[in-house]
């Protein structure tokens, strides 16, 4: 009688425990995304969120990851650092997410790093600035190329053409300023002399005054590191002043709208770009080509023209999913270790080879030098 009671009790406890196990196995994996869905950097966050939604829906339709569905929690930072911190606190404390993706901008990402490190939760940033991963932060990773790689690519291309004297013209945004710092830092290494250094406000409608000064200098090429409509104004005004020096733009303008805005003046402009914009022109043997084309087709069939920013979100999600699969659960420390072990993952930005010293895992080869030719991007050899 007594042993029967015990037996039934332990059977019940076993059932209960088993039930809990099943329940936790059914518990969704929660991914928190804090992106700039409004404000001046809205063109970044918008394709990023669309990409995350599309691929998470796809993963869930295929039965989820490690038998669990993925739940996306998103939060709009508006490109405001204070709001980004509030977003991250909400995602960690209220939504209890297992992993963070985001910071569309370097400013947003840098602002949340202290909170992320304190909460000991892995963060995959979608922003360009090198300071995010240099020096390496234990919990922080990122998927886009750094601006340093873009600068290295531009300088290497200049040397190939035998040009050594450059004029810089940059805006007053964070992206511009970070790029300008890298341009100054890397110049000696490539034997480049900066002979003019002009700036402008990102909302300015006219840059002819700055360009007239550059025209009067002895520069052999112009580098414009900028974002939004300002680079289009620079390109147009350079043409207006009859400046025939080679003009280099940064990866910040890789979008069809830049070509549309700058019009005929954009012809011949060179810039480092992610392989996505020239996916069709890559040789068939390139292992990245099928990944790029698949992403492009999927995005364009759902939302319209693809942008590299959405590609960064794709890479972030794929790195996270692969790490979750390898870890077999979403224990934060285990997940972090697995993200750091990402190796040979072919993404939209390039092939990721992360190490404890390198939390982005891309090299300058991930950038392609492209030239605008007949209103579209042409891959340079």
């Amino acid at each position, binding site marked *: 009688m007594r042993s029967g009671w015990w037996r039934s009790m332990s059977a019940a406890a076993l059932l209960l425990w088993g039930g809990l196990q099943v329940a936790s196995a059914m518990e969704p994996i929660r991914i928190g995304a804090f992106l700039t869905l*409004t404000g*001046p950097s*809205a*063109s970044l966050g*918008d394709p990023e969120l669309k990409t995350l939604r599309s691929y998470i829906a796809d993963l869930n339709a295929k039965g989820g990851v490690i038998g669990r569905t993925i739940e996306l929690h998103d939060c709009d930072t508006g490109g405001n650092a204070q709001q980004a911190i509030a977003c991250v606190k909400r995602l960690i404390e209220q939504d209890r997410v297992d992993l963070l993706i985001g910071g569309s901008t370097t400013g947003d990402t840098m602002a949340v790093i202290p909170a992320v490190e304190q909460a000991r939760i892995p963060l995959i940033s979608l922003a360009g600035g090198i300071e995010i991963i240099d020096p390496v932060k234990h919990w922080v990773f990122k998927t886009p190329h750094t601006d340093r790689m873009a600068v290295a690519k531009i300088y290497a291309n200049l040397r190939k053409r035998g040009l050594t004297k450059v004029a810089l013209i940059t805006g007053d945004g964070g992206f511009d300023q970070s790029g300008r710092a890298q341009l100054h830092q890397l110049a000696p290494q490539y034997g480049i002399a900066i002979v003019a250094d*002009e*700036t*402008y*406000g990102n*909302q300015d*409608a*006219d840059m*002819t*005054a*700055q360009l*007239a*000064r550059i025209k*009067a200098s002895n520069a052999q090429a112009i580098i414009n590191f900028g974002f*939004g*409509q300002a680079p*289009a*104004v620079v390109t*147009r005004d350079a*043409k*207006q*002043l*009859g400046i025939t020096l080679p003009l280099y733009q940064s990866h910040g303008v890789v979008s069809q*709208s830049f070509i*549309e*805005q700058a*019009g*005929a*003046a954009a012809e011949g402009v060179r810039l480092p770009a992610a392989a996505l914009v020239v996916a069709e022109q890559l040789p068939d043997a390139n292992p990245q080509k099928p990944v790029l084309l698949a992403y492009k087709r999927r995005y364009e069939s759902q939302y319209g023209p693809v942008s590299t920013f959405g590609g960064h979100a794709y890479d972030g999600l794929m790195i996270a999913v692969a790490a979750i699969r390898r870890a077999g659960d979403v224990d934060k420390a285990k997940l972090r270790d697995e993200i750091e072990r990402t190796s040979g993952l072919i993404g939209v930005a390039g092939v990721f080879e992360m190490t404890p010293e390198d939390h982005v895992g891309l090299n300058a080869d991930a950038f392609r030098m492209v030239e605008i030719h007949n209103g579209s991007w042409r891959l340079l050899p």
Partner: protein
Amino acid sequence: MPEQLFQFLLTGITVGSLYALVGLGFALIYNASDVVNFAQGEFVMLGAMLTIALLGAGLPLPLAALAATGLTVLVGLLLERFAIEPALGAPVVSTIIITIGAAIFLRGAALLLWGKDFHRLPAFSGDAPIQLGSATLLPQSLWVLGGTALLVLGVRFFFERTRPGKALLACSYNRTAAQLVGINVRVMLRLAYGLSAGLGALAGILIAPITFSSYEAGVMLGLKGFSAAIVGGMGNPMGAVVGGLLLGVLESLGAGLISSGYKDAIAFLFVLMVLFFEPTGLFGHKVAERV
């Protein structure tokens, strides 16, 4: 250097006339109601964006521009009728806050309609730069300069030679007295909003090929236009034009001769100095408080 100086001046006058056009709209509404209409920049944005949208829908440019101006005037009238008029008699500050709200609303509506991208209106007569000695000018700049001159003359004619214009001025000097001599202040207010919306739209259409346009384009233009209006003396349309040109030339000379990093600082320092020494602006009518 002198040939560069000429380029800086040309640039400054072009940019300055953009500011002048926006400032003109500010002055107009201020004249009628003592209110600074912070939705003025949004009228400019609406004119540009509507033209781009209508052009995209297949309308020829003159027709698209005309329709866009008409639609913006309608928006201005609706704004006056449903947001400003119900608050008639409220303190000026409340009305100004209403216009800020209207600006945010219009920006939001534009965001929903046209998305976050920058849009470009093709230049009216090509992109081939015009050579003037050693300096160059875009053909569109001539359109802006010519358009500004025409609109300024038009506004001047309106205020000095037409009955509604004189009635509007009368409202600005003394609203009660104007009412006593039989001027319908409500109608005048509507007229002012409709006119300044139309003026803003025309400005937007003229400058869109130079500045590009997006749902947020009104913010910066509004700010610069407002500065132009206060430098010139709030409520004096000709003052706003001079203020705009001064601001533009100073910015361009600052960027060209001193440092491009301090360009805005130089221009705004000038605004501060003007307000410091001439609180009513360069051409503002001196107000004598009667005790």
